[in-house]
């Protein structure tokens, strides 16, 4: 059978890309440098299985972390983590995704 190659595997962060961490932390949503955009494309373009997402608890005020299942019809997995700002949620998930890609744990 034809193997579907995951095109996002074409890029992985390099040691030089550590400079993008601070750029992201300051502005997780909006205008980014081309290098940060490439990193985020890698992170945000992941398949749906175990992919981080949010569930609205209180509109514009409280969000709960969750993961999609990747299987249509199968419930989201709710995680024991809440945020009071979208930027905080983005920063938390960025750190998890950075670790998954590089093995490096970023401090809060």
């Amino acid at each position: 059978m034809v193997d579907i190659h995951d095109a996002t595997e074409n890029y992985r962060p390099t040691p030089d890309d550590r400079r993008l961490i601070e750029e992201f932390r300051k502005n997780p949503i909006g205008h980014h440098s081309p290098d940060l955009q490439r990193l985020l494309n890698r992170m945000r373009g992941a398949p749906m299985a175990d992919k981080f997402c949010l569930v609205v608890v209180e509109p514009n005020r409280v969000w709960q972390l969750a993961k999609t299942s990747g299987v249509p019809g199968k419930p989201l997995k709710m995680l024991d983590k809440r945020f009071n700002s979208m930027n905080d949620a983005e920063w938390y998930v960025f750190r998890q995704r950075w670790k998954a890609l590089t093995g490096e744990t970023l401090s809060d």
Partner: protein
Amino acid sequence: MMKITAYADRISVAPGETINFMVNCEASRFECDIVQLICGDLNPDGPGYKEKVVRTAASGRYKGRRQVIHAGSFVEVPGGGPVSALESFTFAAYVWPTTPARREQALIAHWSTDAQRGAVLSLGPQGLGLRVGAGRGRVQTVTTGKPFVSHEWYFVAASYDAGSRTVTLHQEPLHNHVGTNDAARKRVKLKQGVGMAHDAPLTLGACFERFDAGRTACTAHYNGKIDSPRIASRALSESELQAFRAPRVNGALLHDLVAAWDFGADITSVKVSDASPNRLDGRVVNMPARGMTGWNWTGEEMCWRHAPEQYGAIHFHDDDLHDAGWQVDVSLTVPKSLKSGLYAARLRCGKGLEDEDYVPFAILPPRGQATAKICFLLPTASYMAYANEHMGSDAPIAQLLGGRLVEHERQDLFRNEHREYGASCYDTHSDGSGVCYTSRLRPILNMRPKYRSWLGGTGSTLWQFNADTHTINWLEAMGYDYDVITDEDLHYQGVAAIEQYNVVVTASHPEYHSKEMWDAMAAYQQRGGRLMYLGANGWYWRVAFHREQAGVMEVRRAEGGIRAWEARTGEYYHSFTGEYGGLWRRNGRAPQKLLGTGFTAQGFDISSYYLRKPDSFRPEVKWIMAGVGKDERIGDFGLIGGGAAGLEIDRADRALGTPPGAYLLASSVDHTDIYLVVCEELLINYPGTGGQESELVRADMVFYPTSNGGGVFSASSIAWPGSLAHDKYRNNVSRITKNVLDRFASGKSLLD
């Protein structure tokens, strides 16, 4: 999660007329109120949620009951006919399975679940199968044991000879792939006979199970195409089968013919015709896809009207849904005193009434009688296209398009787990094929006040229906008198639905239009009507409404445009009407012809702002920008992405039809690279099509006069309404909107 869900039989209703609400409620009781919807945005940083309860006879407490949905399409033929009298038989069809490995899927089923009698031709992981029964404990299944290759045509047949009690299975691939092992012919002698006598309906594409509150419920739903299903009254030999599979059954075999359904006839209808003398006509249930290429499609004709004999296939899906068919719980006869507007049935249950659902609808002005100079056109065709979309939970690109994490609402969680509520035209079916039909006769849980959509940018995160309440909220806050009509009113009544109004105001995202709607709006403009297009991506897709069945709409994602799926080659023509589907741009009617601007780019993270262009200072139109400074940023604020220019944006283009006399008043700047030029502009793809580089990524604010004193103002941004309420409505987006609306509504000349 959601203990109460509901829908209505109509999307709009005039005073004195009745609208019915069908409610599924897990609690023993629910409360119903009719509310006028004003602002559905729960964002505490916005103008606040606003609804007004109105007293009606329908308001009150009701008994709750569970109502379920039976999804999955099939053809139903009334039972008790000549098939029940058969002793020997042959079932045959061409099939193109899309999920053959999934489970048993019925192709032709004459089966009584109660009696366990009949015969079911099916396919599944064990290849072609025939299940036969002669009563309880006397059910036998024979299979070829040769799995099918998906998305390939086969001719299949199963016969039963009562004299020898022999079943013969015939599985014949019509492809020529090397290395597959999917051809089979198998004979099996049964231990017991077969009993065909029962009065259950015969079904194609699923197996009848039971009747449930007026609906036919089936099991073993098939995914894929069936073409030319036929039944003969004896077991045909192999050579006879080759004659039986010919386009027309002739000669001696005619004597044995029991049924020969021709799916290429009646493509626009829900009717299914039997070409045999028995006339075992049936009907499609839950709208399987028609006008589909058949086993003999050559690729030389693209339109089913030109070669219906090559479009003899119906594509069935186990998640198709047309009419949920629930029982009526609440009936509202609209009091004559109720003003036209946006309303909803508010349905609540639970101890503290903490569980709720809303069913929005428009109350029209009295028939034939406008009650205001302003008409707000509620884009219900576009709401239907997006009805119950699952991209946030299903599509890996959602977080790329949004440039951030996807936010899920309780409705999203419910929809993810209740796929039987049906999909949108942005989804694919469970077999991966595109959803080309959508219905409003089911709860549409993303067409709700208070709902946030992942597509709605940062901030209030609003999209479509709930974003449009910001325009309603602004009309109310500014004290305008307005009527509300819906797309379906425009479709069915034509220009008569709007010609009494001085101005029609659009919602943020009026994307889907039938030819009837398009023609009505064009005629309105040419007769002096004035259009305020306070959105973007408008008049983009061509759609068709079914001519027999209310509340169901078709879109074919043909050769161009931003498409969540792609129609298969040869399937670009609407089955409902025979019209060429796809983009209006590819039908010779680019949006620029009707609006001055048309879709150019999209991105769903943050919005931006406009800067004035030289035309805005010309003396004849400078009234539009009265009160706006020369270098002022227009809309660098707002609840939808933080700006007035965003999400989806349109641009003027003379080559696509922007009138030569159009004034380019302002253009947006500084979009992020999440914004990308739409694919219909990319004949050769090239680097630099993001918002930070491409000059095509901009919203053009345009005005132009039309014949007989008419005119068009286009904001060209979906985010526009999210900026109207900023700073208590004292802002330049609100000011420009007011300048234009006052002038358009006044009847005064549009050029100074």
